[in-house]
């Protein structure tokens, strides 16, 4: 059986390991754009922040491909997929045939429209290479501009503030991380960041830049100008699927897959940031572009590729963020619509900076926001993933002293 995996991110790597674990003889080819050894993408922001070194990024040894007996084709992108002939072509050069194919190409930063984007020191933050380039700009940076308040924009801002560089952040919603946290937690995060020198501007965007080879100034949509010598674009990501024939393989925002992580074409699978599958809390298809999902989906895709018909229940959005004095953990539905079918209970203790919110749909837990006391949050997430009816007092779950004993009879 000839397996071909596109993408050497954690989804592709996890699938490859699972395939090797279950089939010692399988032939595996892995095509990846990045030639750096398999590394931890979320940690690149910690390298920017300076809390870990560049050398700590790899999550597998340099001998990974040898050990797994994988034929690696690195440093090039797949440019076309021929479903009829079961081949993929790399940079238009050679065609590689497959029996089973996994698309684990992750996501690419969403580009923006503005004048003079070619200027130096305007960055995306997605790869180890991006951060290496950013670090070169850091020593001379006096003011940074971050576009977008999503996870990446937030982490970029946090890392730069940590390095003592004042940051201005332009966001569309009222507070950073609007997709990840609810307004109350978002406000707490913003307060914490503002106290450390973050300047947040709401409802403005950039229309252009100016500078002499390097960026010096940004022009904003409200007519004002802003001096800056470093810019990070964090306007979200889009699944990297430009080579996928959309008339043959069903695509929505991501590549649609069933419970076996198989696309609409038998034998072709997708996992990780590029895949769209049922979301357990929302009960609809969703792209959950997070690390633990990429690991889990990669493993299940690998099992199915070697013929083990394992079903994946569904994905769940979740995040944990530690910033200065605040721990924030969220999962599932964080912003339940007021007119929806949801029941929301919350407890706020501003003095102790302790906040908990739970979202229920009938008898199931479908969302949570925890600020501080996050260490047992995994139990709540497990409750959401299992989908079992919650038959104990909801007030007890809301208490910070909630523990495993209370779950069992």
């Amino acid at each position, binding site marked *: 059986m000839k397996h071909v995996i596109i993408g050497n991110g954690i989804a592709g790597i996890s699938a490859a390991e699972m395939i090797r674990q279950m089939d010692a003889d399988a032939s595996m080819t892995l095509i990846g754009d990045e030639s750096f050894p398999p590394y931890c993408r979320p*940690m690149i922001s910690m390298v920017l922040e300076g809390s870990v070194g560049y050398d700590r990024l790899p999550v597998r040894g340099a001998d990974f491909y040898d050990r797994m007996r994988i034929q690696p084709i690195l440093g090039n992108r797949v440019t076309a997929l021929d479903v009829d002939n079961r081949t993929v072509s790399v940079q238009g050069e050679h065609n590689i045939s497959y029996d089973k194919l996994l698309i684990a190409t992750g996501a690419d930063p969403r580009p923006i429209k503005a004048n003079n984007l070619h200027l130096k020191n305007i960055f995306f933050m997605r790869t180890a290479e991006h951060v290496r380039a950013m670090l070169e700009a850091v020593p001379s940076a006096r003011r940074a501009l971050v576009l977008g308040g999503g996870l990446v924009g937030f982490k970029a801002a946090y890392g730069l503030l940590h390095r003592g560089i004042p940051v201005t952040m332009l966001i569309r919603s009222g507070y950073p991380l609007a997709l990840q946290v609810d307004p109350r937690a978002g406000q707490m995060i913003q307060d914490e960041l503002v106290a450390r020198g973050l300047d947040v501007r709401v409802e403005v965007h950039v229309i252009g830049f100016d500078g002499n080879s390097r960026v010096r100034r940004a022009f904003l949509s409200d007519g004002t100008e802003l001096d800056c010598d470093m810019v990070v674009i964090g306007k979200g990501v889009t699944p990297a699927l430009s080579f996928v024939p959309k008339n043959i393989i069903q695509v929505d925002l991501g590549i649609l897959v069933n419970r076996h992580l198989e696309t609409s074409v038998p034998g072709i699978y997708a996992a990780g940031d590029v895949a769209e599958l049922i979301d357990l809390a929302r009960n609809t298809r969703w792209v959950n572009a997070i690390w633990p999902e990429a690991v889990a989906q990669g493993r299940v895709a690998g099992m199915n590729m070697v013929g083990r018909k394992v079903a994946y229940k569904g994905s769940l959005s979740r*995040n944990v963020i530690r910033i200065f004095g605040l721990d924030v953990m969220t999962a599932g539905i964080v912003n339940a619509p007021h007119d929806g079918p949801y029941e929301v209970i919350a407890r706020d203790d501003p003095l102790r900076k302790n906040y908990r919110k739970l979202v229920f749909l009938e008898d199931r837990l479908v969302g949570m926001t925890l600020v501080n006391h*996050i260490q*047992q949050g995994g139990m709540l*997430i497990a409750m959401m993933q299992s989908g079992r009816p919650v038959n104990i007092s909801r007030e007890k779950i809301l208490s910070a002293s909630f*523990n*495993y004993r209370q779950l069992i009879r």
Partner: protein
Amino acid sequence: MRKVIVHPQRCVGCMQCMHACATAHSKSKELFAAALESPLPKARIHVGVGLFNEGFPNRCRHCEPAPCQLACLPGAISRDVETDTVLIDPDLCINCASCAMACPFGVIRYHQHCYAPPGKVVAVKCDNCFERQMQGLIPACVEVCKAHALTFEDPSRALKRRTDEVARSVSPGVLQTDLAAGFSVLNAHKRQQIEIALRRSQS
């Protein structure tokens, strides 16, 4: 291979295991000296209080596959095959709490400890008393638990005993085994409490 097995119905909630655990994971390994150490040694087993105030010694199950290991960003969590133990490497841990999100039992805590680089906050959980086992000792929590709520034995043997217990409980005329051996007054009281509370919650 012997493993720590929890028998929640026997737990009397005395928290001896927590003290023993903290001491076993201290520099001095002495209860009173440990209490003066910095960083202060902390227990990796957590006696939680249930809905009816019954105790439960909650500790890492060393799952296979371990959700925390799969979620750990830098790959700081690994499995020691010999003792079947899921271990956290304090040097690699970045204190990101991804494991807190992954552990369905809520058994990981975040603090400094004497095996971690000084001043570094890291994820901490049960290590099956790895160090003690290397010296031929059994895990400290098991050693100290007088109620036999924690035992260190071959899981298949424990399972067989449990099956026998169930068989005995359904065949009439056979004495039921004690909740916690040697604590009969407390047991009677506790069973009563549990039953009353259960009935209340059902009515």
